[in-house]
């Protein structure tokens, strides 16, 4: 079972890399994200909006002053992600996760999803 799980992750890794390199923002330009910057966030998944036209991961992050801040992270289209094996359960509410994102240029709490690493070490997307 464990090896099958690893195989599944390996299978997901390549398309996830492609998705991350090409944000697949087919519905809009994506220019509002700074693709030259990478920000790492650690927090708790609030919601994974597995809906058209793009998926959004809502994650609550401590702002460093003890205050929770909700970040909105945009990912690919659910149909495309679904064909690659991702599901609404990919980011379950309550999960602890560290995200790497291209942040918004104006500093707002949002960004383009690059990769994620769960507390158990499982990764999604272009983590390395």
């Amino acid at each position, binding site marked *: 079972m464990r090896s099958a799980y690893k195989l599944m992750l390996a299978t997901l890794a390549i398309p996830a890399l492609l998705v991350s390199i090409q944000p697949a923002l087919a519905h809009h330009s994506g220019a509002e994200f700074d693709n030259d910057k990478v920000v790492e966030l650690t927090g708790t998944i609030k919601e994974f*909006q597995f*809906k058209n036209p793009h998926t*959004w991961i809502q994650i609550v992050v401590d702002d460093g002053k003890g205050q929770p801040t*909700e970040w*909105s992270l*945009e990912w690919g289209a*659910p*149909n495309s992600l679904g*064909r690659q094996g991702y599901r609404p359960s990919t980011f379950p509410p309550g999960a602890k996760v560290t995200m790497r994102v291209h942040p918004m240029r104006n500093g707002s709490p949002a960004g383009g999803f690059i990769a994620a690493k769960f507390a158990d070490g499982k990764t999604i997307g272009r983590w390395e």
Partner: protein
Amino acid sequence: MRTSIIITLSLVFLVTPGMGLAQGGQPTSILPFEKLPDWSGVWQMQGGTVFDRATQTGQGGVLTVGVREHPPYNAEWEAIYQKNLSLRDKDLFPDVITNCGVPVGFPRVFNVPDPYEFVVRPEQVWILTENGPNVMRIYTDGRKHLEDQWETYTGDSVGHWEDDTLVFTTVALKGSRDGDSILDRTGLVLSDKAHGTTRIRKTNATNIQVQMTIEDPKALTKPWVVTKEFRKMPPGTRIYDYGCAENNRNPVDEKTGKTLILGPGGKPLN
């Protein structure tokens, strides 16, 4: 006797396979299923969504500033394109599909991401795109274009088969007249006088080629030939709902042309 001959001939005509009555009552010849090519499966457009990559030069792309060899625009429409490119460089050239709700139309219907299906039937060919979604219907039952056809996003397409190649003409396109139809996000547009001749064929088991020759006496100085390629996706690939308005957190601000990012409460973050 004469009456019986007419009745007999009429019955023969009506029951002969491949024969029928097209719009306007004109007899036509429709190829039966077994003589049509197999374009089944799910297909993915190759090469990104810059409409004409064959004439693209430099580093310019849908999102990036760069040099491109332009379509054969006349001076007036080259100026329009330059203005659009300038807006694109400032991220202020809105893509009309970002607000959801309108078809991408022809020829952009061959320039969208996500899977395609090419459904071949004797009397029609349907091109279905997941993105949009969009449907393009090409009538192959012998009918002609309507002389009084009004302009739409996808226009009116009629065609025929030349061996395994589908050849069709598309007319009655609204183009950029109403400000809600573009070819790609570099700002390519055509006028409401544009029309096209398209040839589609399966070049091998895993590739479909679409070659469009676009003419536009209002915007172009000569015919513009663009080729798009489609690669077959793995067997069993599914196509899903594309409900653009389901959770659109990226509407365009109509006042500025800027694409917004909506926060979890629906308030713009930019």
